[in-house]
């Protein structure tokens, strides 16, 4: 008999039905299991119970302003490429009540003391995990720690999955974030036709997996997985040249390309909503009509919103040109000065979900070409 003791770093072969039991165990441990699910002809991350909720045999076909699902008869669950929305909705909720205030004589505050949900994220791609690591730097700074994000992040269980079939909009290799996971997960799946290869990334992951029935992977299976991952690395749909990118962008704020792209950009905010790293938020009061009580909420905001940069006396970015330029030069430029990392992981969502099909890789290449010409 071979020793089947699990260690951090071990890889085992897990029969696919065992995933149901693993997810059930997570729920027994007070986790809400959320993962990919086919809904309204697209894949969303939502509450799932097991294999039956996963998008079986579904492939995604993404292109600028285009997202299509293809049904295959394969017994595979993770062949689609990232869902429309990212995981940030779970750590940085789109709408969250901070407190409410009511006036009974004097104003009284009531904090929102709902306990933070504990999420187990099922099927986190390497680019998406990189995005979570970037948001960690934004929300968990030394001088500011976001309590909503922190409480959700601390309780997080991450079941990662390696991408084997990148889409036409993917460029994680250029951004150095994928397609293969290296660290930061509790468990990491690589899906083959018969089994999941599962790598243990943490003590928590080890203890959850230890309860399951698994085998040591054969050399054949491991080889197949490695080959599939190498193939994925070589089949990125897009590339971005990141050399000196912050300097290139921040020293060419007057490039003509900003005028060109602003004629196509609708300033609709889609790119910032689907972006897994965009972090801007607003605070709004939902007051009752009598002015006696109000609820203060934190909601997602976007630098493409006209109100975003409103100050009394005007808007500091009144034109789409300045808003698009702010978005791109922040994400791929000044973000580096602020958080010591670029704000793009190469997931391609902003390309897919832009109704005008604006392609961030094409814009960067155009500015580079303009500067070099």
């Amino acid at each position, binding site marked *: 008999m071979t020793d089947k003791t699990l260690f951090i770093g071990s890889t085992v072969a897990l029969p696919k039905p065992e995933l149901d039991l693993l997810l059930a165990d997570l729920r027994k441990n007070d986790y809400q299991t959320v993962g990919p699910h086919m809904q309204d002809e697209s894949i969303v991350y939502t509450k799932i119970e097991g294999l039956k909720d996963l998008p079986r045999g579904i492939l995604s076909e993404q292109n600028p302003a285009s997202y299509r699902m293809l049904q295959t008869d394969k017994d595979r669950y993770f062949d689609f490429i990232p869902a429309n929305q990212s995981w940030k909705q779970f750590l940085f909720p789109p709408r969250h009540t*901070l*407190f409410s*205030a009511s*006036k009974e004589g*004097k*104003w009284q*505050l009531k*904090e929102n003391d709902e306990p933070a949900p504990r999420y187990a994220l099922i099927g986190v791609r390497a680019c998406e995990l990189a995005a979570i690591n970037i948001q960690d730097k*934004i*929300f968990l*700074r030394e*001088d*500011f*720690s*976001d*309590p*909503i994000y922190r409480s959700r992040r601390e309780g997080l269980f991450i079941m990662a999955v390696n991408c084997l079939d990148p889409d036409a909009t993917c460029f994680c290799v250029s951004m150095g974030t994928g397609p293969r996971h290296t660290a930061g997960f509790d468990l990491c799946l690589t899906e083959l036709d018969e089994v999941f290869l599962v790598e243990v990334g943490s003590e928590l992951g080890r203890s959850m997996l230890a309860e399951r029935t698994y085998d040591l992977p054969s050399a054949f299976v491991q080889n197949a997985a490695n080959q599939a991952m190498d193939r994925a690395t070589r089949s990125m749909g897009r590339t971005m040249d990141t050399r000196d990118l912050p300097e290139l962008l*921040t020293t060419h*704020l*007057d490039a003509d390309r900003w005028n060109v792209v602003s004629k196509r950009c609708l300033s609709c905010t889609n790119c910032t909503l689907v972006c897994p790293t965009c*972090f*801007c*938020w*607003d*605070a*709004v*009061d939902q*007051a009752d009509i009598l*002015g006696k009580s*109000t609820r*203060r909420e*934190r909601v997602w*905001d976007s*630098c493409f919103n006209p109100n*975003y*940069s*409103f*100050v*009394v*006396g005007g808007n*500091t*970015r*009144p*034109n789409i*040109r*300045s808003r698009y*330029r*702010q978005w791109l030069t*922040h994400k791929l430029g*000044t973000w580096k*000065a*602020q958080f010591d990392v670029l704000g793009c992981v190469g997931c391609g969502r902003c390309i897919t979900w832009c109704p005008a099909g604006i392609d961030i890789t094409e814009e960067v290449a155009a500015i580079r070409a303009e500067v070099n010409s």
Partner: protein
Amino acid sequence: MTTTLIDTAAHSAGHNDKLLLPHWAEIVKIIPEAEGVSTFHFRFTDPTVQNRYRFEPGQFNMLYVPGYGEAAISMSSDLETAGGLLVHTIRHIGNVTRATSRLKVGDVVGIRGPFGTSWPLEAIEGMDVVIACGGIGLPPLRGAIYRIIRNRARYGKITLLYGARMPKDLMFPAEYEAWQKADIDMQVTVDRGDDTWTGRVGVVPMWFYHFRVDPHKTAVLTCGPEIMMRFVIYEALARRIPSDQIYVSLERNMKCGQGACGHCQQGPYFICKDGPVFPFKALENIFNVEEY
């Protein structure tokens, strides 16, 4: 970068582990200043918060009016002058600030703060100081003026250039005499005079043509409309005042005060956290970029 002397953990009104949760403060006094502008004196209702609260001139608070939201308003005094009260001079022009115009003595607002960097009053000791401000740009500098007057011997020549649209828009006119007595060369100008106005008509940057500066020992503090500051900076640089001796207070949309919500970004900076007061040297590459 300018630094503040406040240990924010020990002296602020806020909650480290709660997002945007304010402390209540009661309005103690309201002074009408000009049309659509009034000065509010606040005291925190929680004495512990009131006693620990400190700030430096140039910093700001987030004022919360329930049902309306928050507005970033700078302090227009200092604690010593105001007997420990928080003083904010507010122009009632936005959604939240218009709501404050309807408040009365005894009403409460929520306050979080202080946030941001302050005027570099210690770094510029020993220097001549030109304070150039316009309109509602004077209130954020008044605390600095008080501080300078209290320590008058530590500074060289002080010149205060102040401009407003109309004579009736001038802030704090009752105090000008006291400031002049404290050996501040105060020069007031308006864009347009009225029947009784006998003073200067013109814009603030033009005043640089009326006096000489020794660039190496002169600091400039400026706050006001961005177009005014642009020309104040232009005139100061033309007189060879080094860009790290010119201090600028910027205004941007601010929602959190903690460099978290993203709104106030300009280039690499979160104006609420890295500013609002910057040495111009830090802004050289971004200040004149249109719509940036």
